[in-house]
């Protein structure tokens, strides 16, 4: 949670500097964010590849565990498609791309702004931050009424790190491996799915 606030703080700082025009124009001319994104993707890859649980995970993988991230993807896409049908501000393509952030707001927002413009990038940022917050707040409720996979599913990609502590607290540590697995699979799939959609 503290990490998310710091990240949000940097976004707000940039926002304020932008609104009040505090930076000289020549700095705004260049688009550095693409290179920063390249660096981030490379680093995220290292993080996924070096995850010590991943070896353990590959040993424990059976048919069933794969169903968890698959359910997250299917459910998210069904949900956002219904959303796209009942309003006319966001197209189904845009809605799917935002949903495909699966809570990983830093990555998805930057990717989506590069591919489709800043407006959609900001919606992706706010939407995926709220996904993390909703998961942190409603995990007890989800776990109680919708089964042990519900908090993992709500957390999306965050179920491997930021929401993992609260998730395992309410569904038990025997589900921690499933939670981490689902988060890792979704993290890897986010850039792939978003690139395909947009």
């Amino acid at each position, binding site marked *: 949670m503290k990490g998310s606030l710091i990240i949000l703080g940097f976004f707000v700082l940039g926002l*304020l*500097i932008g609104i009040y025009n505090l930076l000289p124009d020549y700095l705004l001319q260049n688009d550095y964010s693409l290179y920063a994104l390249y660096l981030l993707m490379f*680093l995220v890859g290292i993080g996924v*590849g070096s995850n010590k649980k991943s070896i353990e995970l590959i040993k424990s993988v059976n048919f069933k565990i794969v169903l968890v991230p698959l359910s997250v993807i299917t459910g998210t*896409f069904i*949900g956002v498609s219904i959303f796209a049908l009942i309003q006319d501000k966001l197209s189904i393509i845009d809605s799917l791309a935002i949903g495909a952030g699966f809570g990983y707001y830093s990555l998805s*927002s930057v990717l989506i702004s590069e591919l489709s413009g800043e407006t959609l990038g*900001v919606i992706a940022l706010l939407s995926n931050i709220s996904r993390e917050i909703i998961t942190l707040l409603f995990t007890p409720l989800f776990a109680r009424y919708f*089964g042990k996979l519900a908090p993992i599913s*709500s957390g999306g990609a965050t179920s491997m790190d930021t929401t993992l502590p609260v998730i395992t607290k309410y569904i038990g540590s025997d589900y921690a491996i499933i939670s981490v697995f689902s988060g890792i699979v979704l993290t890897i799939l986010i850039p792939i799915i978003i690139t395909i959609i947009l």
Partner: protein
Amino acid sequence: MITVLILMTLGIVIGWFIHKKENILKFVSKLTNLSIFLLLFLLGLSVGTNDQIIKNFDQIGLLAITITVFAVLGSVLVSWLTYILFFKKNER
């Protein structure tokens, strides 16, 4: 954007080989945080200079929260079904 995918795959392979080198991984994790801070700062900056977004910020915020509610409900319900069909039996 294929570059993004290639870089990530490259990272995963390298990560696999250096997963025992704690000090490198600590540095990688710090650098990851720094680049996330930088990216979100830059996103904020480009949003702040975009009048179109600033003017419609309340509407954009509402859209974002609504779509999230649908995304979360959809995934919670589908995973509930998965839980009942494939996971619950084995626990008892």
